[in-house]
């Protein structure tokens, strides 16, 4: 066992019950992610990549198998402990941005810190800092509906970064953006990975997006069918 593994998943299986029938979204996935990796999870829709991301993001629990995050087994934790892990160790970036409407960029960025015990003054400073990392200096007090799609996604990235997570999870982060803006967002991910050594997992079906990744896994029908690494 390698203790440098940031993520270790063993024989991960997730079965949904839809009425009488059972849907096997993941069947026996094992994989390791090291600190500093930039991994792309690829696959067509229905391949199980969203399910895998939800489990890695501690939003969901596997039916079978084990999931270790920084050496701690999280597959057995209860809802509240999973919430703490999401708060401390994981940052999410979604395809649809998922920002609070009618709220400023700053307040959106602060959101994860409101659920931790960081003093109020410090949350402000951290939020300003995170927004400057994604290049939104001077736009902190703009409301989300006054920002362009690209800017909204930058706010989402700032929100994911603000609690200095061990892991950044991005689900189709460029899916709702035009090509040029999408490329800018991908540059941000690339820089975060290279300069700040942040571990990033991208979930996408777009080969252009996955170009920046050094590791790729391809899913189909809940199984890894191909692994690539540079």
């Amino acid at each position, binding site marked *: 066992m390698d203790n440098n593994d940031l993520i270790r998943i063993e024989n991960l299986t997730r079965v949904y019950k839809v009425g009488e029938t059972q849907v096997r979204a993941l069947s026996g996935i094992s994989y390791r992610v090291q600190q500093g990796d930039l991994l792309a999870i690829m696959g067509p829709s229905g391949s199980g990549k969203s399910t895998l991301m*939800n489990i890695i*993001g501690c*939003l*969901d629990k596997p039916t079978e198998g084990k999931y270790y995050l920084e050496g701690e087994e999280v597959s057995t934790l209860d*809802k*509240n402990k999973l*919430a*703490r892990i*999401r*708060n*401390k160790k994981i940052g*999410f970036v*979604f395809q649809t941005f*998922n*920002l*609070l*409407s*009618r*709220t400023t960029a700053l*307040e959106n960025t602060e*959101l*994860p810190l*409101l*659920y*931790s*015990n960081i003093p*109020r003054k410090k949350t402000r400073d951290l939020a300003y800092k995170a927004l400057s990392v994604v290049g939104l200096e001077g736009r902190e007090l703009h409301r989300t509906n006054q920002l362009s799609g690209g800017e909204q996604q930058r706010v989402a990235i700032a*929100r994911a970064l603000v*609690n200095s997570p061990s892991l950044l999870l991005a689900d189709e982060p460029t899916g709702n953006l035009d090509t040029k803006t999408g490329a800018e967002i991908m540059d941000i991910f690339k820089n975060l990975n290279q300069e700040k050594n942040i571990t990033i997992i991208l979930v996408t079906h777009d080969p252009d997006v996955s170009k920046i990744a050094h590791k790729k896994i391809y899913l189909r029908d809940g199984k890894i069918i191909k692994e690539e690494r540079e």
Partner: protein
Amino acid sequence: MNIIRTIRISLRALSRNKMRSFLTALGIIIGVGAVISMISIGQGAKRAVEERFDSMGTNLLFVRPGSRSFRGRHGGGGTYQNLTPDDAKAIEEKADAVRYISPNVSTRAQIIYGNKNWNTSIQGVGAKYPEIRNWEIEEGIFFDEIIVKSGQKVCVLGSEVNENLFEGADPIGQIIRIKKIPFRVIGVLKSRGEAGGWFNRDDMIAIPYTTAQRRLIGRTDRINSIDVSAISMARSMEAVEQIEEILRIRHKIAPGAEDDFNVRNMSEIAEGAAESTKILTILLGGIASVSLLVGGIGIMNIMLVSVTERIREIGIRMSVGAREKDILLQFLAEAIVLSFLGGIIGIGMGVLSSNLISHFAGWQTLVSIDSIALAFLFSGSVGVFFGFYPARKASKLDPIEALRYE
């Protein structure tokens, strides 16, 4: 996550949708306002009744003839006269819890001054009548014991009679005629206003009871009633007992037999009246509470809609690490903040509207601290009670489904 932070989060969430927040709170505003103004009307009525009785004197006692049965047939109270001037004298001399007495003989008569005439109540009373009834003299004097004893033909006018006969001219020293008998006016009583109902307390003339007996009624051995004032309110029950004892002996009533007279205690009557206004207060407050309850249901309704509308927001909050408890507390805090703010505004509205009511309707209103505290606490608990269910519903959402919700 501490309380202040929870409140701050919920305040932010509320301020993002000000119109909805205001409409939600409106139910509580109206409810609390209604409770406060309705209770203030009830309490104002109670206060008005108390003041009226206070002005009559709470240590006032009335002695009246009782009913007498004659061959098994009962007459009504006061249907026959069995009180004598000597009864009054005996009470004055023997009952030590009694301060003043005033024998009372009353009749109605036409009175004439110059070319004006007026029909009014003639009260034959003792010299201590103003003290007993807590009644002040506007001008002139009231007759004293000497005048009463000698049965002089003098009178003191009620303010209504004074206005009707003299129309602003100085009445003191003038001669008016009661049943064609000339009386000299020596004083005018201060106006007291209506006692409620038909009876105007200012529409009367006071003359010595001795004069009334001799000149107007023609019978000196009977009086209608006796007004008594006890030494103090605390001793008024004692005074009642002493009077009963004295009169039972004087009227030769066998032990166990019914009294042929009644002694009524003014504070008892006052308490009875206060009790009925208390029922009024409870009734009004109860009706208003219903609107507060409806306001609470309004909060629950809007909060439930708001939870459905904000499923995505809840999902976002959960994805960045909000626990079930955090979401529960946020939505609960929103409901409580709304109902508290509504409560505060409602208190303002209630105080304002009770002032408006007393200004325009002329009713006395009284906003008590108690009713404010009650309404405030009630509105807070409405928030907790009706906010809990939607908040719990929000906290039980699954983060993945909440994030996916369109």
